[in-house]
C-alpha cells in the first residue's frame, strides 16, 4: 500500500494530474441543483456504454458488404456474450436518444441556454444531430435487408436536394447501386467520423460547463441581464457554492448507475432486434422501417401531402438548424417557467406532436398489409355463391391489402366492414372502375363478371352481416 502511494505521488508530482483536475472536479456549483440536473451526465454515460460496447463489437464485426451479415449472426448467436453486447449497444443507443432529449427539454425549460451559456446550447445542438446520425447509420450497419433498403431510401431522399441531389445519392451508395462500397462508407462514418465529432463537441460542451458554471435553478423575478449576470453569479458561488465533487456529483453517479443497470437488464431480457433476411437487393419481401427513434420522422414524410414532400425531405433535416437560433434570439430575461408560458407550450406541443406521429409511424396505416389472409366464411357470411366468390376476388385482386373487413386487412383505404350502409351500388361501381388518388382504377383489370361478384360481396357488407358474423365467431 505504501509502495502504491509512493508510485502515485511520483506520477502525480511529475504529471500534475491532481493539481490540474482537482479544481475541475471540485468546481463550485450553485445550491439547489437537484435530480433534474443529472440528464446531461447520464447522456455522457450512455455514450461511454456505446463506446465500450461498440469497440467490443468492432473486434468481431466485419465491415464488408458480403460478410457483415454473417459476422453479426455470429455475434448474435455464437460468440460468447455477443448477444448481450449487441443488446447493450442497441439499448444504449435508445438510452442516449431519450436522455439527450430529456436533457435538452430540461435546459430549455429552465432557460439555461441564456447568457452566458449560448455556446453550451449550440454545441449541444450539434451533439443532438450527431446522436441522431449515429442512430441512423447504426441501423444500416445491421446490414440485413432492412439495412440495405434503408440505404436506398436515404439515397433517394438525398436525391431530392436541388442541384446536388444526384451527387449526394451517388455518394451515399459509393457508386450508382448498393454494393461493396456502400457499407464500408457508413461503417467509417458511424465508427470514426461521428464519434470523433462527438468526442470533440463533448469536450467543448464540458469545458463550457466549467467555464460558464452550472446554471443556478431559476427564480421568478430574477431575469438574466448580460451586464450584471456574471458578477452576480460569481457572488452567488462565493456565498453559497458547493464543490461538485462530492456534494452534487453523487447524484450523477447514482443516476448513471441506474442507466447502466437499465441498459444491461433490458439487453438481457429483450435482446437486440433479430436480423431480417440477408442483404440481397434482389429480395423484394422487405418492409423497411426506421428504428423506433425515427418512426415519428417516417410518419411526417408519409402523412405530408405529396406536393410538399420534396420541400419537407430537404427542409426537415435542416430544421434542426432552427434550434441554433434559440439562444441567439432569446438570450436574456426571465428563466423561470412560471414567467415563460410559451416555452412550456412549445415543450408540450413538441412532445405531443412527436408522440402522436410516433404512434402513427408505429401503426404505419399507409403501408399495404401484405400479410392479409383470405376472409373466413364466417366473416363473409356464406361459403358459396356470388358473395363468397366476390370475397375471394376481394383478396386476390389485392383489395384486402388496403381495405379491412371485420378487422382483417390493411388500413391504407377506408374500412369496408359496413360499406353497403353508406354507399350505393352505383357509387361503389364508379369507385372500383375509376379508382382514386390512392386507389388504382380496376376498370381495365377486372372483367364485368368479376366486378359484379365484387359488388355482390361489398353490397352484403352491412352492420347486420357484421354483427351476425361476430355472433357466429363468438359462438364458435
Amino acid at each position, binding site marked *: 500500500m505504501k509502495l502504491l502511494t509512493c508510485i502515485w505521488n511520483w506520477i502525480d508530482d511529475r504529471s500534475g494530474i491532481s493539481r490540474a483536475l482537482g479544481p475541475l472536479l471540485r468546481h463550485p456549483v450553485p445550491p439547489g441543483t437537484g435530480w433534474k440536473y443529472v440528464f446531461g451526465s447520464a447522456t455522457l454515460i450512455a455514450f461511454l456504454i456505446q463506446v465500450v460496447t461498440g469497440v467490443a463489437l468492432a473486434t468481431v464485426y466485419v465491415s464488408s458488404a458480403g460478410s457483415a451479415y454473417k459476422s453479426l449472426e455470429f455475434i448474435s448467436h455464437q460468440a460468447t456474450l455477443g448477444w448481450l453486447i449487441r443488446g447493450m449497444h442497441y439499448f444504449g443507443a435508445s438510452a442516449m436518444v431519450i436522455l439527450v432529449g430529456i436533457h435538452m427539454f430540461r435546459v430549455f425549460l429552465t432557460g439555461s441556454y441564456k447568457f452566458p451559456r449560448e455556446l453550451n446550447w449550440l454545441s449541444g445542438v450539434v451533439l443532438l444531430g450527431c446522436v441522431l446520425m449515429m442512430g441512423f447509420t447504426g441501423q444500416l450497419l445491421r446490414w440485413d435487408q432492412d439495412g440495405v433498403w434503408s440505404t436506398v431510401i436515404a439515397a433517394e431522399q438525398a436525391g431530392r436536394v436541388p442541384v446536388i441531389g444526384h451527387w449526394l445519392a451517388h455518394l451515399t451508395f459509393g457508386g450508382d447501386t448498393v454494393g461493396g462500397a456502400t457499407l464500408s462508407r457508413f461503417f467509417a462514418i458511424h465508427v470514426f467520423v461521428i464519434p470523433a465529432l462527438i468526442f470533440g463537441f463533448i469536450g467543448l460542451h464540458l469545458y463550457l460547463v466549467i467555464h460558464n458554471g452550472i446554471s443556478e435553478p431559476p427564480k421568478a423575478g430574477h431575469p438574466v441581464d448580460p451586464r450584471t449576470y456574471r458578477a452576480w453569479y460569481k457572488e452567488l458561488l462565493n456565498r453559497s457554492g458547493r464543490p461538485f465533487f462530492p456534494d452534487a456529483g453523487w447524484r450523477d453517479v447514482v443516476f448513471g448507475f441506474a442507466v447502466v443497470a437499465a441498459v444491461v437488464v433490458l439487453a438481457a431480457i429483450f435482446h437486440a432486434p433479430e436480423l431480417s433476411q440477408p442483404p440481397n437487393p434482389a429480395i423484394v419481401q422487405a418492409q423497411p422501417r426506421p428504428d423506433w427513434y425515427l418512426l415519428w420522422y417516417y410518419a411526417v414524410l408519409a402523412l405530408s401531402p405529396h406536393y410538399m414532400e420534396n420541400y419537407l425531405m430537404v427542409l426537415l433535416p435542416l430544421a434542426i438548424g432552427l434550434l441554433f437560433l434559440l439562444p441567439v434570439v432569446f438570450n436574456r430575461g426571465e428563466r423561470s417557467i412560471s414567467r415563460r408560458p410559451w416555452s412550456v407550450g412549445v415543450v408540450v406541443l413538441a412532445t405531443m406532436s412527436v408522440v402522436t406521429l410516433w404512434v402513427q409511424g408505429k401503426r404505419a396505416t399507409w403501408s399495404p398489409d401484405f400479410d392479409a389472409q383470405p376472409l373466413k366464411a364466417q366473416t363473409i357470411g356464406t361459403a358459396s355463391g356470388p358473395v363468397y366468390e366476390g370475397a375471394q376476388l376481394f383478396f386476390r385482386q389485392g383489395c384486402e391489402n388496403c381495405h379491412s373487413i371485420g378487422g382483417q386487412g390493411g388500413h391504407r383505404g377506408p374500412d369496408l366492414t359496413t360499406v353497403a350502409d353508406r354507399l350505393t351500388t352505383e357509387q361503389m361501381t364508379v369507385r372500383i372502375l375509376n*379508382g382514386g388518388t390512392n386507389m388504382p382504377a380496376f376498370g381495365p383489370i377486372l372483367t364485368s363478371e368479376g366486378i359484379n361478384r365484387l359488388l355482390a360481396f361489398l353490397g352484403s357488407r352491412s352492420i347486420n352481416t357484421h354483427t351476425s358474423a361476430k355472433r357466429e365467431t363468438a359462438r364458435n
Partner: protein
Amino acid sequence: MNLKPGGGGFAHTRRELLVIVNFGFAGLSALLVGIPVIGFLFAPLFEKTAREWRSVGPIDRFPAGQTVEVSFEDASPQPWAGVSAETGAWLQRSSATEFVAFSLNCSHLGCPVRWRADAKLFMCPCHGGIYYSNGSVAAGPPPRGLTRYPVRIRDGNVEILTSPIPVT
C-alpha cells in the same frame, strides 16, 4: 505590433513574416493531406461505372404474359460485395419476342415493389405506391412510373443491361 522598442521595421516585418510562415505551412500541410483524401472520398462521383449485359435465363423460361422476378449481378461487383452485388428486376414477357424489364425500385423512395399476379399490379410496401402492369402509376405517391431497364435477346437468352438505381 512593434514589440522591439527602437528595433525599427525589421522586427515588425520579420514577425509578420513568421506569422505567415506559421499559418502558410500549416495550411499547406493540411492541403497536402486533404486533397488526396478528398479526391479518394469523392472519386465515386467521377468514376463511370461500366454497364454490362447480364443473361437472366433462356427465353423458354419465361411464359408469355407473365411477370417474374429475375436477379443478376451488378456491372462491376467488388470481390467483397457478396450478395449485396446482386440486383433484380421484374421481367415481363409481353409477346413471343418482346420483353420489358422494370426496376424493383418504387419511383417514390426506392422501396422494393412486389408484383401481385392476380391483381396485375405492382405494390410498394412503404407508402402504398401502386403501378399497373405496364409500369405506369396507378395510385399513391409515386411521381412517375417504374423505370425500365434495357432488355435484349441474344443466342436464345434474355439479357438485361445493368443500370443505376433510379433516383427520382
